């Protein structure tokens, strides 16, 4: 807001310079939302399933200490080496030290939003380690030198012609080729070579089962499996909130995840890793990075129930028209807007305000996180902590004074005048912001109050 860095509004303004592109972005994501609706409607028990998943996650958060200990001890029994990282820096150092011990300088990585959150790629590159993202969308944004704009569809902001151009430059596809089939085939050849020659693979974790010590990774492309099963060293990175109590709970979450994310009945691969392959080393890093702090915030802790399906982004009318990069954080959209202020309230003070509080996000959330209510609550916290624009604070105080005093409100002017100056939509005195593309309402002859006094004398 007042950080000097471009905020969501400014970045959205840039994104909206090209309206045809905004339309395309909106329609593409709306298509995904529509697929999600269709998939949800194949199950009569959908709402019961959401409620069940939500309650399982509530139980997880309320018993996280014991579940983490149980998971750790079971994973260790399975032959997995378990690490704990208090923050992003420690996570990155752990990954680096594992690679260093094996003298590995090149590796493949499948999708992990946690490693995006920790900026692992940059860290490893600075330490002389090459990381190849193997999810097609992530590889595309990696080649473009950009972060993902969506947690499930990393390059949803890119047109196929732009991807064709990138592939022409980096993978040698014919100039002007933009057919998704052709581009995907080129990526397949390019990435197969990486899978076959890299000795280490990083994957994320969708679910980790306390009862068995196994963890589940979901992909459509099969890139997590290609990486993990061909590598000597598999490193799985997870936030501590990814725990679920029992293996049977997977039945609930796997039914919800892909249907919510892309409208598929399940991801192509739901891989359950319990022990390392013979001769392989399997590491698992449990990362806090602000999660224990969020767990302590009663109003915000259930944001930790998130299973990273991205449904809230696809349905969000703001996200669809501002693009993932406008959120300037690893996890964009409504869920990102309630997670990010926990990490840095000042830097992300704008995000809870990048919403109309329409509530659609809450309705699609498969674990029933009250996202829009948390956005409202973050606004209160951010203002109280002093991260609001001072001009806005003054305007709000004036407004408060007028609205608390009926006589001041009445004498503030005849119909329309007070609202013209102080109405919600004009409160930060950016008159042009309304008028730039919208007309003002025409002030009527008299206010309702005036009419009522004349016509309805009781």
């Amino acid at each position, binding site marked *: 807001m007042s950080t000097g860095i471009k905020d969501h509004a400014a970045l959205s303004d840039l994104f909206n310079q090209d309206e045809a592109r905004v339309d395309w972005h909106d329609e593409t994501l709306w298509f995904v939302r529509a697929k999600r609706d269709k998939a949800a409607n194949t199950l009569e028990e959908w709402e019961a399933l959401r409620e069940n998943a939500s309650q399982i996650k509530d139980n997880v958060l309320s018993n996280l200490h014991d579940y983490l200990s149980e998971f750790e001890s079971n994973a260790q029994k399975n032959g997995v080496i378990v690490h704990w990282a208090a923050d992003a820096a420690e996570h990155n150092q752990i990954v680096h030290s594992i690679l260093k011990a094996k003298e590995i300088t090149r590796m493949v990585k499948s999708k992990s939003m946690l490693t995006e959150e920790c900026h692992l790629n940059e860290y490893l590159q600075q330490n002389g380690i090459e990381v190849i993202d193997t999810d097609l969308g992530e590889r595309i944004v990696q080649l473009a030198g950009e972060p993902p704009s969506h947690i499930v569809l990393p390059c949803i902001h890119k047109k196929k012609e732009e991807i064709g151009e990138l592939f022409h430059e980096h993978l040698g596809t014919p100039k002007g080729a933009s057919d998704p089939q052709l581009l995907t085939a080129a990526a397949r050849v390019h990435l197969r070579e990486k899978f076959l020659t890299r000795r280490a693979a990083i994957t994320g974790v969708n679910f980790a089962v306390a009862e068995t010590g196994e963890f589940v990774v979901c992909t459509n492309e099969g890139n997590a499996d290609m990486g993990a099963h061909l590598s000597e060293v598999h490193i799985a990175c997870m936030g501590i909130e990814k725990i679920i109590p029992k293996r049977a709970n997977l039945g609930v979450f796997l039914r919800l995840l892909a249907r919510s994310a892309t409208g598929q009945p399940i991801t192509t691969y739901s891989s359950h890793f319990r022990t390392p392959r013979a001769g392989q080393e399997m590491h698992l890093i449990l990362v806090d990075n602000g999660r224990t702090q969020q767990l302590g915030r009663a109003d915000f802790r259930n944001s930790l129930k998130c299973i990273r399906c991205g449904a809230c982004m696809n349905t969000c009318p703001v996200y669809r028209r501002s693009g993932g990069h406008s959120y300037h954080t690893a996890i964009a959209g409504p869920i990102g807007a309630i997670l990010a202020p926990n990490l840095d309230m000042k830097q992300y003070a704008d995000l809870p305000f990048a919403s109309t509080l*329409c509530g659609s996000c809450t309705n699609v959330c498969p674990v029933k996180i009250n996202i829009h209510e948390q956005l409202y609550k973050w606004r209160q916290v951010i203002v109280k902590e002093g991260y609001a624009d001072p001009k806005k604070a003054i305007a709000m105080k004036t407004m408060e004074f007028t609205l608390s005093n009926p006589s001041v409100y009445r004498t503030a002017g005849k119909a329309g005048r007070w609202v013209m100056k102080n109405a919600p939509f004009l409160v930060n005195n950016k008159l042009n912001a309304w008028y730039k593309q919208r007309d003002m309402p025409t002030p009527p002859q008299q206010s309702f109050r005036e009419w009522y006094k004349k016509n309805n004398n009781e």
Partner: protein
Amino acid sequence: MTVGLFIPCYIDQFYPNAAIATLKLLQKLGVKVSYPLQQTCCGQPMANSGFEHLTTGCNELFIDNFAEFDYIVSPSGSCVLHIKDHLHSDGQPEKAIGVRKKVYELTEFLTDILKVEKLTARFPHKVGVHQSCHGQRGLMMSQMTELVAAPFSKPLHLLNMVKDLELVELSRPDECCGFGGTFCVAEEAVSVKMGKDRVADHLNHGAQYITAADMSCLMHMEGILKRRNSQVKVLHIAEILNAEEV
């Protein structure tokens, strides 16, 4: 039954006809309505901007004005939702809870309390209905497309009683218009784009009027329509439900 009429500040000052129609419609249905003259605002503009702590004065004033009525009715789903969810008072907590329980948006009140099954209104036009988010998702005035649940709609139920009115179908029946209080200026670009897209959906389906149970959404869409010199008009749902035979 006594009903206190709560008219949000911007309706009072900009859209008195919506308020007049609300009053007349309730009177026509035999309800004794009064409008407390000391009312100002529910405090939502401040609260949604993160300044809920500044709403104490508004809250106390609201309680003083409305606590005595059996019901409080307002032609704004958004303001009603704010009262329902956030009205509080350290001095008179019970009264605050009482107010929260008896505040109704107009179409909710007509459907759930008065159980209206017949109206005398006639409105021979093609009408697109905008589902305002706070009314729809907050007050659950109609079913939401995100949920796997049986459809219903209180506003549509009432509009279907209006003679000669033709409802138009929309491609996206419950997408937000982008008003969002201070959002409409703080996030001008996205707000306007959302409004343009919503308006386009109505225009593409041949609406002559866009109606809603929230005037703020309509004010936003009207601003866009007027800028384009469109002939399509916005009208609060009360004005249609109260439309006289012509």
